[in-house]
């Protein structure tokens, strides 16, 4: 005789976990660390420009930290990521393998930024270290981590591309969403969002403010942040805004960290 299921009584004991049925539980979400500011430093746009671009940005991050702003820095990949993606694509590697390869370069960049910020409290952290953030921030540290989400081999293939759809912009957005932070800040080398890539199309015009819905409807061939993030924004619970600022223009990063509306703001 085979025994019955030994079930622990709970509102979800017999419910289907996925699917569209309403939850039997009254969900009142709690923000984990809403005062943190998550800022992502672009790989191709900033790191690959070297000292001239990065150092003034780090100075503004340090200044913000001195003002008491709790900054967590995430890093992007850049040209080395593109290089490995390109070779892996030629070899027809599954997207999950490509995403795993994609972890290494933002990690290098995070380590470089940590070395540069060390004397100001720069601290290299891993994805699982969110649980230690309260201590690090209380000590006045500037935690630095790779922006790449830890999906790795579990990254899904998306139609029409072998490149992992969740990259370091998604990591910044999802970090905000977990921590209960309202706005994710992206430091790039353009003033914000344009109607097309301004590096390729001189007629591209600047868009200071737009909603995710409007942006999806415009169906632009190229956009400045990962599409996944724009897709998630309307159904996010906490992270309702993406701010894109030009790190090559002095003062922009500090202004953004102070909560000012500079650059482009994409809202839910």
């Amino acid at each position: 005789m085979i025994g019955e299921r030994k079930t622990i009584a709970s509102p979800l004991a017999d419910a289907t976990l996925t699917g569209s049925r309403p939850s039997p539980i009254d969900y009142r979400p709690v923000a984990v660390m809403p005062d943190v500011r998550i800022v992502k430093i672009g790989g191709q746009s900033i790191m690959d420009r070297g000292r001239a671009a990065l150092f003034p940005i780090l100075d503004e991050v340090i200044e913000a930290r001195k003002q008491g702003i709790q900054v967590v820095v995430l890093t992007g990949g850049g040209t080395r990521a593109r290089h490995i993606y390109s070779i892996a694509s030629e070899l027809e590697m599954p997207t999950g393998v490509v995403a795993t390869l994609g972890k290494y370069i933002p990690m290098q960049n995070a380590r470089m930024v940590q070395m540069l910020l060390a004397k100001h409290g720069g601290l290299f952290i891993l994805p699982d270290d969110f649980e230690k953030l309260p201590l690090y921030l209380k000590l006045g540290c500037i935690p630095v981590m790779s922006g790449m989400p830890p999906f790795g081999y579990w990254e899904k293939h998306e139609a029409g591309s072998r490149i992992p759809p969740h990259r370091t912009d998604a990591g910044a957005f999802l970090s905000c969403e977990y921590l209960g932070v309202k706005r994710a800040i992206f430091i790039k080398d353009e003033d914000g969002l344009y109607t097309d890539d301004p590096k390729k199309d001189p007629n591209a015009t600047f868009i200071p403010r737009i909603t995710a819905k409007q942006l999806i409807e415009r169906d632009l061939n190229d956009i400045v942040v990962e599409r996944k993030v724009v897709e998630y924004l309307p159904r996010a619970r906490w992270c309702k805004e993406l701010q894109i600022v030009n790190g090559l223009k002095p003062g922009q990063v500090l202004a953004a960290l102070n909560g000012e509306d500079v650059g482009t703001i994409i809202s839910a």
Partner: protein
Amino acid sequence: MTKPVADDGRTHIQSLLMRESLQNRKVLSQTDSERDLKIFPDVSLVSIGGQSIFDRGKSAIMPLVEELAVVKRRHKMVIGVGGGTRVRHTMSIALDFGLPTGGIAQLVGAMEELNAILLNALLAPHGSMPMQRDHFWDLPLYFDAGITPIAISVPPFHFWEPPPMEGAIPMHGSDFGLFQLAEVLGMKQLIFVKDEDGLYDRDPKLHPDAKLIPKITLEELIKRMPTENILDEELYRSWHEAKNLRRIVIVNGLKPGMLTRALDGEDVGTVIEKTS
């Protein structure tokens, strides 16, 4: 060696994607093709249900362990386990607390690990080992040594679990996690061991007249998806976009021999095939 290019202030390495935006659809489409590399095409992935098998205790678990001990001698396989009722209890409490989706995703894996430890303790004398998260490159070594690895089922999305379509429960559970494992490694098939004969048009536990679906293509199934489903929706969604995995089988683990027949390639239980 290729020379770095620095004409625009950024230092680039030459490649197909050099200077390109990875959001540009035209650029992205150049990276894709019809096929993906299949890394372990002769390996089957077997998922042992949490609620359906482990929560029933010894009388359901032991016959399966004995069957696995025999069949593992002639099949290369990786085993995954579900978490069952403890996962649901965890989620109920966490939702009541108002914890974020990523926080819930971080918590649930521990409940499945308990089942993995139990299974490994029972199967170890016959040759089994828990596999570290993504230590796939050890698999040839495991198989040569006659060891069946027990994998972690939940995907490592953790704090980064994307916002769900609806509600706050993470979308990526163990069904998806095991699917993705079979998919990314290009495995032969994925077998779900449950306590029903397979997939029905309605939940057979609630509707005695529910009809078993013996064989169906994924495309047909998506067109008429049963609302009460034995597998997570996210699995079907992801499989639809995927390239490698062709076959998922759902068998009744309470009936001796069904898992063996599925591993032998027989059409038992419910067979779902992806044809495009």
